């Protein structure tokens, strides 16, 4: 699953806190162009079942998660479905 955030700094803070406090592994990637109307951005990618933890962690850090996208594979292509 992807959570899109406003900046690379927010992504780094979220990733660090998820790992340190919640032991949730995640990694940072550029937000796919199809998912953003505002140009370059960053997302953190994590396992689908950690969505609630990610939301909670972002709230603690006052980080605004712009959207969550579930990742699926259809006809050998990765598609993102907005949650």
């Amino acid at each position, binding site marked *: 699953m992807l959570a899109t955030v406003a900046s690379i700094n927010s992504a*780094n803070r979220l990733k660090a806190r998820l790992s340190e406090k919640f032991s949730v592994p995640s990694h940072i990637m550029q937000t796919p162009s199809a998912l953003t109307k*505002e*140009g370059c951005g960053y997302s953190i990618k994590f396992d689908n079942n950690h969505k609630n933890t990610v939301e909670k962690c972002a709230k603690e850090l006052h980080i605004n998660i712009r959207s969550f996208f579930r990742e699926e594979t259809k006809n050998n292509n990765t598609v993102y479905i907005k949650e």
Partner: protein
Amino acid sequence: MIYLDNAATTYPKPKEVISALTDFVTNCGASIGRGGYKSALSASEMLYECQENIAKLFSIPSPERIVFTKNATEAINAAIFGIVNPGDEIIISSMEHNSVMRSAHEAVRRGAFLKIAHGTPEGKVSPESIEKLISPKTKLICLIHSSNVSGSINDIYSVSRIGKRHGVYTLFDLSQSAGVIPVNAKDFDMVAFSGHKGLFGTMGTGVLYVRNGITLRPLLYGGTGSYSENASMPEEYPDLFHAGTLNAPGIAALNEGVKFVLKEGVYEKEKEITLYLYDLLKEIPSVIIPGERERTSAVSVCVKKADCVMLAEKLSQEDICVRAGLHCAPLAHRTLGTIHSGTVRFSPGFFTEKAHIESAVSAFKKIIEN
């Protein structure tokens, strides 16, 4: 060479700082926030880590509100021009460096008003003298924590409380104190400092911290690697102040410098070596040292009937590095009574040994006697 100009920039740097700088340039080399490949993400993570370490050192509650600039002057400009509007009043002190003094005068040219709180002949600015100047128009108080001329230390904690009581923002210039004496910025509005002085980073790094709830206009406008389709700057920190490519090698070096300060606890050693220098210089009969004994590492001296620049020149011939003149702080020299003569400033650092001090003072003594 005996380097005694650490108030200008610290030298030498810890080996960890040099390694971080060369390692970044050699093995990473990517621009912060400009891409999704591993080295670009690692550069961005390094900036984040540097914010966290600075926050730890200064007890700053919101690390994301720490922004990187090219020096303390740029950080000070960002704070002043980001918050002061025409008609607002700024209070500065007579001990300020030109980084504040000239910026405040430019703010006046743009329609603000300026008041100056006068320091004592020892170079200290009392919180009461600042409070007396506050009026309903006062928007910002800028105060230097420690003078780059006399090393005098101002009570920024009381001034912060005064600002809060009157609803006036405060900006503290920590250029001489950051990494040299402990600073707790937890309750401060804004602080600005250099990265290349007491924090052992390289030149080209400065820091501005703006507490949550303060809205500033950015100083520069441009690409941030985020919200690229928007014509406006992103509101989020630190991106609001990170227009253009950042000095990533410098930030990598600064990160190691801050870690060095956190690890080594440099304060006591710097204090001891400064006081040792002060006491030896004080023994020379014709030497006058403005300011109190308790200070950060700037020890400026005047010598009766001697030209300070010529004294520094003669020390330079002995390979001893000191700085003479007005140190970009004419108001401070006026306050200390040294505006006409200037001073010779000796500023030791963490790596200065007692033997260096003894050699420098002995050479200085001989120069004066001849």
